């Protein structure tokens, strides 16, 4: 046991300070996409909807309906249309209502 004790002392504290302070390791986590409305034509949107494996994307006429909850952050959409999709960098996504997680993103040429 002394062996373990000494090892523990030598390693020191590894515990994150989150949520008091941000945690650097969050930078490399996969995060859900963010969309560039300017690049989102209906065609692009349809391609994204088609490629999304989890059914997180849906096109509702001139709006891209994005369900953050259903998104697995697999990155297929970003691969499909790099110019229109980037990474949101958000990982604190917990919501107290399911509806909060459903985002409506206007397509190009539409007022939000």
């Amino acid at each position: 046991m002394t062996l373990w004790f000494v090892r523990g002392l030598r390693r020191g504290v590894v515990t994150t300070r989150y949520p008091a302070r941000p945690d650097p390791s969050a930078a490399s986590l996969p995060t859900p996409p963010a969309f560039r409305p300017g690049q989102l034509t209906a065609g692009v949107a349809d391609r994204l909807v088609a490629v999304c494996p989890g059914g997180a994307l849906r096109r509702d006429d001139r709006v891209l309906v994005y369900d953050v909850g259903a998104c697995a952050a697999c990155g297929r959409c970003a691969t499909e249309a790099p110019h229109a999709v980037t990474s949101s960098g958000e990982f604190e996504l917990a919501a107290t209502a399911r509806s909060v997680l459903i985002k409506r993103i206007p397509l190009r040429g539409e007022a939000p």
Partner: protein
Amino acid sequence: MTPTHLPVPPSLPRTVPGEVTTFQVASPDLEAVVRDLGGLRLADMFAAGSDGDATTLRLVWANDTAGQAGYVITETSIENGEYPALSEIAPAAFVEECEIYEQFGIRPASGKPLNRIMLPPHADLPTLGHKPQPEPEEARAPHIVGGQAFEFPFGPVRQVGVESLYYGLVTSGEEVVDLYLFTWHKHRGLEWRLRGKTPEQALFLAERTEGLSAVAVGWALAAAAEAATGTRPPETAQRTRAVALELERLYNHAAAMAALCQATGLAVGQSAAEITLERLLRLNARVFGHRYLFGVIAAGGASRAPDADAITSELPNAYGEFKRTADALLGTNSFVDRLEATGILTEAQARSLGLVGPVARAAGLTADARQVPGAPYGTGVTVATGAAGDVLARFSVMLAEAAESVRLIGEFLREGTAAGVTEVPRTAGTGLGWAESPRGEALAWVALDDDGRITRARLRPASARNWRGFDDACRSQNVFTDIPIIEASFWLTAAGMAR
């Protein structure tokens, strides 16, 4: 892979190194062929076919002898819903016999009772073939406990942070008399879902079949699709996959180490192992953008390139941490004593049940899908084996494999890795794919239609194989407090078994 007719009795070996050889076997000859192929390992067995009447039974055999490692598939079309009882000859076939019965309603001729494997007894679920009619009574696994023993019900809701799984632990109060387990609480019908999907779409689910070996299962499925369509992924992409696979092995073995410490109640060791594990997971995130390496494998290649600098800068420290923890554990008697002579599986048991991975290698077998000649591994993998077949042997095998993984990652990075995909043509075909997951050989077999969509996909993660050795390992035990240790040393998932 040209189907040839197999003379009976043939002369071994018939496996072409690194290749998949396919034979047509007439249903009457099947029994003789299985006897004759006994020298090989029955790696998998599954049925395919639209609706029962034209069902084809496929047996996948693996040759594990280094240098000539390869696979044999025997195809047999089943008439009149019966086939010879292969589990009488090769016990490894039993679980698959039960699965096939549940899914296609065709059963071994012996007429002996079958276990309930996939489909829960209290639900009516769609199946791949037509359902067994009428709903079989004996398939409900008559677990009648008599005399002075009682069934210790364990699960499905078990301790915190573990998967849902049910043990029926038959005990006399002290020793383990018998043990059986159900995983159908997690049956998600994945093989049923994969029908009609393109390989690329299928990968999304394949990675989530057994998330802790996402790369291996994904790779196996991708490789199956590539074999079916004759696609050759770029060498660099192959090596990328291999880097991901070895990283997966590393973090899984670290996790197994933590689980072993937890099972033996060594809290300090558990913390140390978890620190190692977390560092490896963060490394994964830095290297491939996902802690569990989802989305690395793509049909026809790899969709992400590894961050080589991250590996070269971080992996040595992380592995050093791993190594120091392992050494400290092996120097802790209270830990090692619990592992020694616990959960023994003999080589004979491991062979007859067709076990794979560290479990089989700890018992002295050499089954390792990385030995199969071809990209990216070539023949450069040294397979670590043990002899004792107990938990300690499994642990040692895992440690040796971790070291080997680090070496391999270094080599692959030197030889060059990159993202890159060869387009998978939309053509019909069938193909077998494999990859050595941390738990052992993961297999996948797909049949594609002319549109390149899956008509039948068979996923066989290592867990689907190794659970069947678990109850034997437990039964070798005289106190049931050792079961958590055995479970940790197997390091399987219910998700992979249930699919």
